[in-house]
């Protein structure tokens, strides 16, 4: 598609295309650039710069004042810690649980395999919002053990806990699907060779299949991480009080209480950074698997 017309025309076309793409990139990056740039400016500086391009650039007298204020005024560190723990446990637990089910579906032969596979695919369609509210009812009645007065007791209700933010989201139909498709592409000769060597299902899963599943593990990790870190609706419903609150409801509350644009932008920058970092690190893999999974619908 690039051999159209004389060289000069081609050059101009490429130039024009480059400019267009850069313009669009600016458009897409604009809000985030604004967010980052504003986080280093005082409120007056922000308003001064608003009507020009300097809104997107840091001011010459930039400072970390907003960041300091955020750490002083809010319990951001606590929120970050909560989100980090929730995200980490969700990723690890989710990878384990979903890959195990996918292994059973892709590699083992058992009665009801087809039925379960259909069930998992059907669950892909259910939007979270539909079950969010009844899930509240379910979660209000689940037991959990805790240490109180030196003994193990059973408490009812999962509100205001870490597990309520983690456990309901470990089993993820999309991740199961990802693992299933990937496992199916691993040649079964590998399993058979291992069987000849005397390996049972768990050994095959843990020492043969999983070590060969780098790409899909990375993708599932990103999907689970993003889901956990960006969670808003659910924690807003089940967590009251700041002790176990994660970052998204945290910033929403800060947004409602604060008047300082600069501080809000600083807060936003802090909690967006991990996401962007993880994304940039794994973007190639992630892009590859999103592209590979959606074509036929």
């Amino acid at each position, binding site marked *: 598609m690039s051999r159209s017309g004389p060289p000069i025309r081609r050059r101009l076309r490429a130039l024009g295309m480059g400019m267009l793409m850069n313009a669009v990139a600016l458009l897409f990056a604009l809000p985030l650039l604004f967010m980052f740039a504003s986080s280093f400016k005082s409120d007056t500086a922000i308003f001064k710069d608003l009507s020009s391009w300097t809104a997107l650039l840091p001011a010459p007298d930039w400072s970390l004042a907003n960041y300091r204020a955020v750490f002083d005024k809010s319990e951001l560190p606590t929120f970050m810690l909560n989100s980090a723990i929730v995200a980490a446990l969700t990723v690890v637990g989710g990878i384990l649980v979903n890959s195990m089910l996918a292994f059973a579906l892709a590699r083992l032969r058992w009665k009801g395999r087809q039925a379960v596979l259909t069930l998992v695919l059907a669950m892909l369609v259910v939007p979270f919002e539909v079950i969010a509210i009844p899930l509240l009812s379910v979660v209000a009645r689940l037991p959990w053990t805790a240490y109180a007065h030196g003994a193990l007791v059973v408490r009812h209700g999962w509100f205001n806990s870490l597990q309520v933010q983690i456990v309901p989201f470990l089993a993820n139909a999309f991740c199961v699907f990802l693992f299933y498709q990937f496992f199916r592409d691993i040649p079964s000769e*590998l399993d*058979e*060779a*291992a069987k000849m060597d005397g390996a049972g299902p768990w050994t095959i899963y843990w020492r043969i299949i999983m070590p060969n599943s780098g790409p899909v593990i990375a993708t599932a990790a990103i999907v689970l991480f993003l889901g956990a870190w960006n969670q808003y609706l659910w924690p807003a419903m089940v967590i009251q009080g700041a002790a176990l609150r994660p970052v998204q409801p945290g910033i929403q509350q800060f947004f409602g209480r604060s008047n300082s644009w600069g501080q809000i932008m600083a807060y936003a920058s802090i909690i967006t950074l991990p996401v962007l970092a993880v994304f940039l690190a794994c973007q190639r893999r992630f892009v590859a698997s999103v592209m590979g999974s959606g074509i036929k619908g």
Partner: protein
Amino acid sequence: MAQITLNAVAKTYPGRPARQLFRDVSLDVGDGEFVVLVGPSGCGKSTLLRMIAGLEDISGGEIRIDGVRVDELAPVKRGLSMVFQNYALYGHMSVFENIAFGLRLNRTPRAEIERRVREAAELLQIGHLLERRPPQLSGGQRQRVAIGRAIVRAPRAFLFDEPLSNLDAALRADMRVEIARLHQRLGATMVYVTHDQVEAMTLADRIVVMGPNGVEQIGAPMRVYERPANVFVAGFIGSPKMNLFPARHDQEDRVAVGEATLPWRAAGSAAGSGAVTAGVRPEHLLLAADGPLRATLLLVERLGAESLLHLAVPGLAQALVASVKDAPPPEGSAVRLDVRPGRLHLFDAAGMRMAAAGDQAAQEKSGT
């Protein structure tokens, strides 16, 4: 080393309609014997091998190793090793780990593992590759690692599933020799599957030819070559392919081919059998100035060591192929053909070989 016995083994794939792969396969593999299962793709040879290994269920019959019934046992309990077509190496482990894997699972002591792995590696000349990983190896090297993995477990018998199919021609020839030498050295019972009849002919103590009817023939390579049991085996074994063409056996001592006749006498006193299929291998179809068959030379394919002549014979729909070593006559010339005595095969209307009068003597002479 072990004896493997298959008794009336059958395989049917469930479903609607159920697909029966084969019905009644019986085979005795002797201790230390090298048996090759050969046939076109889809005939079930790999399936049969996998059934022996324990990777597939059997639908009927039984499999015994050293007299003990094994068809209910898990693969590892049968004491067999398998070498796969695509090597099936664990890409994330080193060559050493690949070979040692089975031993580790068996909780063999470390020193023992070291010893046995190095021994196997030496035997296969891959000792210098032990720290590398499969993706870094060539096809031939990977195949050796796969064989090493099979050897190190000291199995009762070896199973090979088309191990050379993924190698290029030159490498295949080399590896063929390696495997033959391995068999000599270890004296192991080996069951080998291939679709390449050259491998079958050169490696086997006995060949099992499998075709559309299950097992078509079992026998030593030369015997199968010289006395194919039916039309299928005749056309499958031997390269270039045997010429098979319709003929009529109306008189006791001759066969009508087109307008000519060739001598042929049945063993025992069978009167004429009517329409038959005749078979002559290209290497046994000779150019003879006074031969009974007249033909026109259509095309010459020069291969270097030999030439293939495509000949039109009046009365025959398809061309015959003759293989000659001397300089061929020019294309288009009229020639006369003869068949080397005793090398004309006749197959009845059902495709089964008809015993010829000289068979007994030939058998004794070649010792098959």
